């Protein structure tokens, strides 16, 4: 257009007519453009289109613990074992079978014979050993579970034996599900290693796995495109998608419109209220499966009035979680019964819990030296964490009834982490959601309540510390006997609830909006916000 204008200037007498005509022609052309086709497309039958609101951080499954990247890892890479459907039982994946010694210090995996990486390399015991060693070397991701490995033996091409210095509860689950040692072609790693980085820079943008789909193209924050790995070891009989496109859509309103029009098949990482508003729309279903997600509100146990256990207990009695679930979550959750989800392995059935009792709460506050409350607490949350603001407001109104003032402050995620991970600056209440990496209640209890998990190490940012609990957890995780370990964990749960370092709010169902035509989805709480492309098909 600019060009037309300048050209027109050199033909002076016709300027007005020309420009007007040019203007009209261009406008008409612009409006007609989409009619030429290709502008608005419905999702292709043979292509699965996933719209997700959160960017993957890296394609390298070994170096990140973010919640978004596993969606991609899960389909291009595989691990030795996996969880069977929606259970916490293990089933073989790249391992044909596995065996754990009685003292739980030796783990033996038999590796499948017929598996190749997409670059043609064969998966064998040496490749598995190489990958476990790479994971330990990069010191990121699941590496923290592997520290106890003293040696890795490969007596033959199909056998890998891991020797541990001591038993470690949950060790096997480091080889299953999302954050795990995924098998990457050792040749690709060796060929692309730069300055001893174990090919981290290269694997950030490339995937060389054994999974059912291989990466066709990837552009950060835009899309990841996958197509079938023709030589996939489980074969392609039955109904599977030809290609899969993961589209990064950063606006909930767009994501919602796209799903309503059927342009995307699934929407991930949507705000709760948007998800709920989609329930019941024609052509869309919203999954409703119990998850292992448990929501907490942490109190500072070291500073201010909440350093007093009685005040923390009073606050727990003052929170009417049931009405929060009804009012804000559409009833799609249930009150939590302690630090561990009630449907998770190792949950102690007889853990006591706090039932809403404002009178008792007031009496306890008075007893603790705060009659009528009269103090102020700060609640901080991060931008973009849509569930934390309403929670803060509910907390604020519940505490007003007890005479406690809550000041709410929003921070950037980094500033939030900076404030709370520093014991000198942390004296705040905050919301937290947890789902497990390892299939053990230790995962929940250590990360938020163990003294060692304070500061940068974990999420004990309420700075709770109880040596008795630390000992129970330390003993439990290293005990090879199931029933002894169980008893230690049971006591730990009771102890945590009694000390009330956090409010145990609710266990929320996993709600994922999906078009009706998509079939084959199985949810497992160990595999949050991911899909098994291979299992999905159109009904």
């Amino acid at each position, binding site marked *: 257009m600019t060009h037309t204008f300048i050209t027109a200037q050199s033909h002076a007498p016709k300027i007005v007519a020309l420009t007007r005509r040019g203007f009209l022609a261009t406008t008409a052309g612009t409006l007609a453009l989409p009619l030429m086709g290709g502008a608005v497309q419905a999702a292709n039958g043979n292509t699965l289109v996933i719209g997700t609101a959160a960017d993957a951080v890296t394609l390298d499954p070994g170096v*990140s613990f973010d919640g978004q990247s596993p969606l991609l890892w899960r389909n291009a890479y595989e691990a030795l074992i996996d969880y069977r459907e929606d259970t916490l039982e293990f089933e073989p994946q790249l391992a044909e079978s596995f065996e754990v010694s009685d003292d739980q210090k030796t783990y033996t995996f038999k590796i499948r014979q017929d598996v190749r990486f997409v670059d043609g390399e064969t998966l064998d015991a040496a490749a598995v050993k190489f990958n476990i060693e790479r994971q330990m070397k990069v010191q990121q991701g699941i590496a*923290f579970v592997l520290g106890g490995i003293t040696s890795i033996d490969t007596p033959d091409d199909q056998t890998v034996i891991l020797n541990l210095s001591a038993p470690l509860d949950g060790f096997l689950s480091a080889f299953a599900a999302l954050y795990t040692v995924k098998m990457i072609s050792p040749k690709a790693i060796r060929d692309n290693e730069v300055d001893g980085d174990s090919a981290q820079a290269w694997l950030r943008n490339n995937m060389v796995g054994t999974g059912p789909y291989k990466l066709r193209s990837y552009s950060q924050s835009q899309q990841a495109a996958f197509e079938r790995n023709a030589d996939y070891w489980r074969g392609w009989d039955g109904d599977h998608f030809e290609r899969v496109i993961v589209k990064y859509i950063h606006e909930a309103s767009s994501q919602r419109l796209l799903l309503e029009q059927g342009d995307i098949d699934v929407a991930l990482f949507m705000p709760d209220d948007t998800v709920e508003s989609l329930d019941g729309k024609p052509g869309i279903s919203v999954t409703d499966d119990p998850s292992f997600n448990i929501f907490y509100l942490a109190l500072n146990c070291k500073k201010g009035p909440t350093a007093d256990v009685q005040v923390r207990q009073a606050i727990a009695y003052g929170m009417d979680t049931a009405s929060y679930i009804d009012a804000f979550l559409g009833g799609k959750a249930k009150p939590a019964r302690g630090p561990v989800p009630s449907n998770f392995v190792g949950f102690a059935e007889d853990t006591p819990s706090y039932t809403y009792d404002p009178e008792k709460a007031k009496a306890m506050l008075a007893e603790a030296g705060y009659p009528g409350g009269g103090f102020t607490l700060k609640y901080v949350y991060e931008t973009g964490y849509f569930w934390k603001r309403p929670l803060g407001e509910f907390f604020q109104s519940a505490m007003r009834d007890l005479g406690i003032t809550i000041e709410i402050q929003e921070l950037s995620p980094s500033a939030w982490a900076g404030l709370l991970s520093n014991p000198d600056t942390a004296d705040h209440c905050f919301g937290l959601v947890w789902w497990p990496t390892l299939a053990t209640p230790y995962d929940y209890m250590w990360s938020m309540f163990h003294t060692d998990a304070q500061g940068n190490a974990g999420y004990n940012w309420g700075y709770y510390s109880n040596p008795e609990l630390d000992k129970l957890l330390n003993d439990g995780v290293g005990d090879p006997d199931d029933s002894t370990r169980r008893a230690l964990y049971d006591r730990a749960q009771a102890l945590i609830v009694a000390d009330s370092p956090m409010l145990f709010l609710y266990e929320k169902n996993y709600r994922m909006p999906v078009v009706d035509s998509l079939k084959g989805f199985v949810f497992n709480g160990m595999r949050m916000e991911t899909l098994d492309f291979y299992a999905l098909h159109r009904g």
Partner: protein
Amino acid sequence: MLLYIAKRLVFMVFVLFGITVITFMLTQIVPGNPARLMAGQRATAEQVQALSEQYGLDKPALTQFGIYIKGVVHGNLGMSLTYRRPVLDDLKQFLPATIELTLASVVLMLAVGLPLGLFSAARRGKPLDFATRILTVAGVSMPIFWLGIIMQVVFYKHLQLLPIGGRIGISEFEPAQVTGFYLIDTLIEGDWGAFRSVLAHLILPSVTLAAGSIAVVTRMMRASVLEVLDTDYVRTARAKGMSEGIVLRLHVFRNAMVPTTTVIGLQVGALLAGNFLAEVVFNWPGIGLYAVNAIKNQDFPAIMGVTLVVSVIYVFVNLVVDILYTVLDPRISLNGSVGT
């Protein structure tokens, strides 16, 4: 003129250094823990520490700044904490999208704003002028994020004419990145279907982004034209019997362009700023979207990278505007003297 440009470029280095210092200070004022955030929720203290060292976050702020500046001089903008790759790679990927969108909006702004202002003034008080005035008020009043969503609802949801966002069809593969400009890349691939799709994807975001600027340019152009129409030389030209078309083209348009050019330059800056909103609404993978993410994660190398690039563009646009003055009005000289 060359001396002038050289002076301006030297001056630009100081401007950019100043901007870098201020941005760096701003990113440091807020206490944060980007390494903790990067490491993820299961990371051990050692892992956080390792990341901290790897990205130099454990050093004092001044040292970090020194390292950063040294890198910039060598063409290294540091590593993005959010995406864990060189910021330069990020910018290479995201900047073309922003430039493509901004250029489309600039083209719209000029192609619609200038003639509309000219005709509206030439037909002062007539229906076209009246309609234009209403539209321009509407144009400057509508915030981008609101207009964008309304456009999506109308053109995507109800009329099903235009795509909702992104640069290319939702189930289409992105073209191979050669230039990063999809209009060009799809042509290189010879894929007309994809080219049309890219063009269609440009319409809503560029119209939304340009709406405000079109209004401003139209108003400015209209006012300038009205002023010029009142001058003696226009009356003389008409008295000589020149046709209205020639009067408008030869005497009015060019003279009215001088003040309008200033506004256009400012509007290019406004478009760059507007990108941050338009890119979020239309899921346009440009540096606006990138910057929003970077700010959330306190990813200071990325924030500084974006600030630097936007500043360079802004300074250049100002330089171009200054040079354009002399082209439009030979009486203006860049050396400080005014000709007669």
